[in-house]
């Protein structure tokens, strides 16, 4: 209820498969640490969900520096999936997250099918996890380093193994570095995903013309930020038309207008990524902005906006 007018507050709730969120605004993995890093700047209990930094079975050190470089309206990163590993995540990071009212979604990554399923299995026994998001943009070591998410059969195999290993809702995070996103989206839907999220970063690179060296030690990295929003929006639209499970939109979302574009293109929820770095309150501002937009448009629920794009 609005305390001044007595009007009912717009309903921001959305369902990501079996997971109900109080609003459709989440934090993208790798841009919000383990939540605690933002606790002094953001009201974490205002968020739809927190998706934590991707976790692997063993801790990973990550790539040598330089790991990040700014580009026009975006940034390239080659962090190398540095993380504390699943055991330390459960003992050191999860206790803080558990005290929040906001659902916690754990992003998992691996370099083999077995690693993904062992991770999913381990996280089954940890209290306080609402869902898993599966990063399938990692290289499959046994297949010569081809990313799982770029071959429908490999995407299917990862999805199936995680699906079988966990009772938690499973969101598969898709790579945009593919020719036909609809094909991959359908493959993971058929393999049992409860939802898909996209896009992960686009592969890119930058050169220092004075030293003639790549600006990232890893030579290439993932492009994120407002620069990739139009590409992400197009892929969300294509994926949403290809599947009947919920789609979570990611890619350069910085303002409420950005979030609305994704919802209208077919996303049930959105993730805010790079914006957290330069505008830590972006998520909260988008939540407030969605309420405001629904009031302006005289809509009772955010669900009325999902897939409402007019194409005739």
């Amino acid at each position, binding site marked *: 209820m609005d305390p001044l007018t007595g009007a009912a507050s717009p309903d921001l709730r959305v369902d990501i498969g079996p997971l109900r969120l109080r609003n459709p605004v989440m934090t993208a993995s790798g841009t919000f640490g383990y939540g605690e890093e933002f606790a002094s700047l953001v009201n974490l209990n205002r968020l739809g969900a927190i998706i934590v930094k991707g976790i692997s079975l063993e801790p990973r050190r990550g790539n040598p*520096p330089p790991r990040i470089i700014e580009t026009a309206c975006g940034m390239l990163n080659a962090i190398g999936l540095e993380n504390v590993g699943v055991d330390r995540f459960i003992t050191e990071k999860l206790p803080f997250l558990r005290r929040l009212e906001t659902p916690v979604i754990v992003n998992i990554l691996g370099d083999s099918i077995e690693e993904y399923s062992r991770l999913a299995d381990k996280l089954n026994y940890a209290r306080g996890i609402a869902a898993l998001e599966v990063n399938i943009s990692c290289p499959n070591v046994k297949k010569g380093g081809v990313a799982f998410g770029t071959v429908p059969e490999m995407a299917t195999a990862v999805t199936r193994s995680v699906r079988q290993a966990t009772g938690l809702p499973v969101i598969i995070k898709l790579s945009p570095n593919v020719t036909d996103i609809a094909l991959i989206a359908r493959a993971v839907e058929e393999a049992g995903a409860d939802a898909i999220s996209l896009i992960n970063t686009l592969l890119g690179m930058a050169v220092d013309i004075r030293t003639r060296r790549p600006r990232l030690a890893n030579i290439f990295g993932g492009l994120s930020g407002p620069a990739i929003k139009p590409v992400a929006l197009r892929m969300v639209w294509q994926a949403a038309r290809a599947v009947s499970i919920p789609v979570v939109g990611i890619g350069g979302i910085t303002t409420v207008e950005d979030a609305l574009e994704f919802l209208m293109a077919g996303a049930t929820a959105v993730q805010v990524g790079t914006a957290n770095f330069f505008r830590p309150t972006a998520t909260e501002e988008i939540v407030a902005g969605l309420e405001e937009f629904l009031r302006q448009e005289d809509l009772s629920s955010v669900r009325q906006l999902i897939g409402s794009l007019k194409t005739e």
Partner: protein
Amino acid sequence: MPEFQEKSPVRGREQLTPDVCRLTLHAPKIAEHARPGQFVMARAGATLDPLLRRPFSIHKATGDGLISILFKVVGKGTRLLAAAAESVEIDLIGPLGRGFDTTVAGPHCLIGGGMGIAPLYFLAERLMRAGRQASNPPVLLGAQTQAELLLLAEEFTELGYPVLTATDDGTIGHHGFVTELLDDILPEVQQVYVCGPMPMMRTVALKCRAAGTPCQVSLETHMACGLGACLGCTYPASGGGYLHVCKDGPVCSAEEVTWTL
């Protein structure tokens, strides 16, 4: 440690040289909690290019809610900041990171090179306030040319520190590297604080190691968030793995860092 986001109006702007600028900003919460060696993340402008905040070590923090940052214009972000007019609000997050350990007793030496002088003024001011002035060895300041040093050297003198300078072009002080001034002083001191370009800090760190004198270095890297989330601001650690400059630093013991260049 408390961290704040403050819309901080510009209260003063000084052009030290054509490309070195000092901004004074009203950021009362950051000023109150800041410790020497900590930094702020500043957003230059409201558009998406440049996208990221820029890290600046805190150059001064005063009781009247003001902080200063000192920087050289090197790109789009710093150019926008340098052009900020009086009362324009700069969005700041801070104070961030691990500052200098000021509890070490005994005579100390501060060595700053170029914009690395910025955090050392705040450190010197707090060391003085703690009553550490008695016959302390000089502060060593280095820069490309005298224009960069004149005002800064005077301010250290006003605090009560003797100052020795070095310039690349010999226009003031020692003609050469500021690190060359350390040799005579090193035997007298029990603690060295250094901030400047990596090759300079490496030289100082290695001299201190040879002399067995503890040395604190203030590191600088690219950084997207300053909050420990992006994991982009890494530097190789001596024990293997990486330091995250925003959380493990920016001030580290020289012995925590791998000095390969």
